[in-house]
């Protein structure tokens, strides 16, 4: 194993890990607040990619400016999904909400395939690169990491320093008690679903500046998000970000140590081991 390759690959994996973490934070936020496993997560990530594509190609908007619009679109879209598909089954058993979000998944994929087909698309953005020895860091990757960190900090400030954010935490903690304190839990749940969707769209938008994509591309990141959420502990946004970074790093190291085709096997072995040994995640309370 070459040390140069290991360092380069670890840095690549680590950087990608922040985007995995951002996507997983959306999934875990929704679960933490309303106990809904959101199966429309992957298609929403892909939708984030296409929002950036459309805004840059049709309106000539800078991709990073388009990302700000994508955040707003993601928030609004999440609120719409909540009122259309989730609200009426929010108190039903978990399988019902699972099916409701799965139907949203199928609708987005179906409509997306009609509109954009499944042909690969790409957002052309180049910010140069910096090289040191065997390590070359692309500007687009560095900016994506910086934005992912900024969005995470923004989310924390919102959750811990603002009234709506505190309401979300209160509802997540104990919905009945929060309602007794005068919090409109329905509005808070809608906002939480909107925020989760916004994070998924943000990660999709950032991934679009790095790689080509199709409407089906979200599937890979959705699966990774589930692994990350289990790594970090369900319902724990900090755990999700750390889980994402850890998974990215593991991928980076593993690709050097074994044929790349074996890396997903390695990832899922870890997934199963964590489910067996620490079912509440690495950062979750001990079972």
């Amino acid at each position, binding site marked *: 194993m070459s040390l140069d390759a290991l360092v380069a690959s670890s840095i*690549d994996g680590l950087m990608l890990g922040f985007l995995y973490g951002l996507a997983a934070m959306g999934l875990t936020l929704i679960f933490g607040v309303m106990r809904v496993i959101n199966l429309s997560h992957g298609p929403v990530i892909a939708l984030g990619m296409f929002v950036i594509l459309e805004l840059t190609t049709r309106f000539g908007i800078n991709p990073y400016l388009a990302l700000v619009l994508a955040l707003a679109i993601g928030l609004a879209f999440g609120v719409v999904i909540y009122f259309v598909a989730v609200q009426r089954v929010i108190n039903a058993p978990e399988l019902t909400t699972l099916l409701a979000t799965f139907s949203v998944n199928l609708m987005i994929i179906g409509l997306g*395939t009609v509109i954009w087909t499944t042909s690969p698309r790409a957002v052309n953005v180049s910010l140069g690169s910096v090289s040191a020895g065997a390590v070359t860091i692309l500007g687009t990757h560095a900016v994506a990491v910086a934005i992912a960190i900024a969005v995470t900090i923004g989310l924390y400030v919102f959750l811990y320093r603002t009234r709506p954010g505190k309401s979300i935490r209160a509802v997540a903690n104990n919905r009945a008690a929060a309602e007794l304190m005068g919090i409109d839990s329905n509005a808070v749940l809608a906002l939480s679903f909107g925020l989760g969707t916004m994070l998924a769209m943000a990660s999709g938008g950032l991934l679009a500046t790095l*790689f*080509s994509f199709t409407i089906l*591309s979200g599937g890979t990141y959705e699966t990774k998000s589930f692994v990350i959420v289990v790594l970090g502990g369900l319902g724990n946004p900090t755990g999700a970000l750390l889980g994402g970074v850890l998974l990215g790093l593991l991928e980076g190291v593993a690709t050097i140590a074994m044929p*790349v085709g074996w890396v997903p096997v390695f990832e899922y072995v870890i997934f199963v081991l964590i489910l067996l040994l620490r079912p509440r995640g690495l950062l979750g309370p001990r079972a």
Partner: protein
Amino acid sequence: MKHIRWAGLVLALTGIVASACGGTTTPAPAGGGTTAPAAGGPTVTKDLIIGFSASQTGAQNVASKKQTEGIQLWVDDVNKAGGIKLKDGTVLKPQIKFYDDESKTDRVQQLYTKLINDDKVDFLLSPYSSGLVKAAAVVSEQNGKVMITAGGADDATMEQGFKYIYQVYTPASKYLTGAIDLIGKLDPSIKKIAIVNEKDSFSTSVVQAAQPYATGKGFQVVLSEGYDTGTKDFAPFINKIIAAAPDAIVGGGHFDDGTTFAKQLYEKKVNARVIALLVAPPEPTFADIGDAAQYIIGPSQWETQVKYSAEAAKSANLPYYGLTAKDFTDRYTTKYSAPPSYHSAGGYAAGQVLQKALEDAGSTDPEKVRAALDKMDLMLFYGHVKFSTDAKTHGKQIAHDMVYVQWQKDSYTNRLATQIVWPPEAKSADAQLRK
């Protein structure tokens, strides 16, 4: 009344769904229909329905579009020339019927079954890409329909003893062997090769032949890795490539992954002196990646600069059939406002092969057409075409040769263009090493 309204609504919706799901057919040229007595003789005009699936969407859409355009141009040319004239006076007017297979194998199986059973097509052409061709070949063979494969080079498909499948492309096993010869000639000091390829049937066939060939020629294979179809992030492979420090990189798979791979190799400043990738480089739109395209070499079934002609056929003691390469390029460029690629030429050539076989057979009877295809040995604008008649490899292409192109910058205009750099007898420029 209510029932009638509902029936109307259902019919309207069915129409919308049908039009959204494909079913594209080119309009029948004048003279269609089953029979039409011509003035002055007992000429019978028949429609000849040729079916295939095309990847209008999905990963294969770029090359598949070119192939379909080639087929459409052939149909136009034949109809403009009055159709395919058989010895008994029958004139066949080709029409094509095709659907979008979305680059998916299961769609191909459904669509070829539909083309055979519902649309009752007379002959089949193939989809684009080896994986899809393999799926179509099984259905065609089971139904006893002759299929000319335009876009499939995989060896394994043609080594199953099929009786009705005929391959126009040079098989995959010969795709990179020429590139390895070229590397050896270009710089004898190059010894270390990295092979990174898509893990599909075609690219695996290519690599399984190229790897022992390279070792036999004295090269050291320092890295051999496969990537999944649809891979977008090549960083893990590129880090391994940098660590192995090869002099040359060969591999790739199809258009999208090949283009992305070339772009990321450039962005990550990989300094191998030769890079040869499958399928993507000969496509004109490969140049969209800008400077990342420069110096990239790719095997091609055909290029606009090839020199196949009636004279070349004569000196090779072969009959020449059809238009010249220049005529094909001009007509194609006029019709589609873009230059043809080898995928376009493959589509047109597949049509020509079927046309010649029908003329030689004097009939649309599949057995007679098969017999004519088995005997075929000729030169087209696309090159020499001859099929294996061996029971195990029946229908496999055994005469057509590859050329290798490289994207080079014109020293005056500084614009990127492809040049044929191998074999020496066909080259339009010398190959260049990456800097």
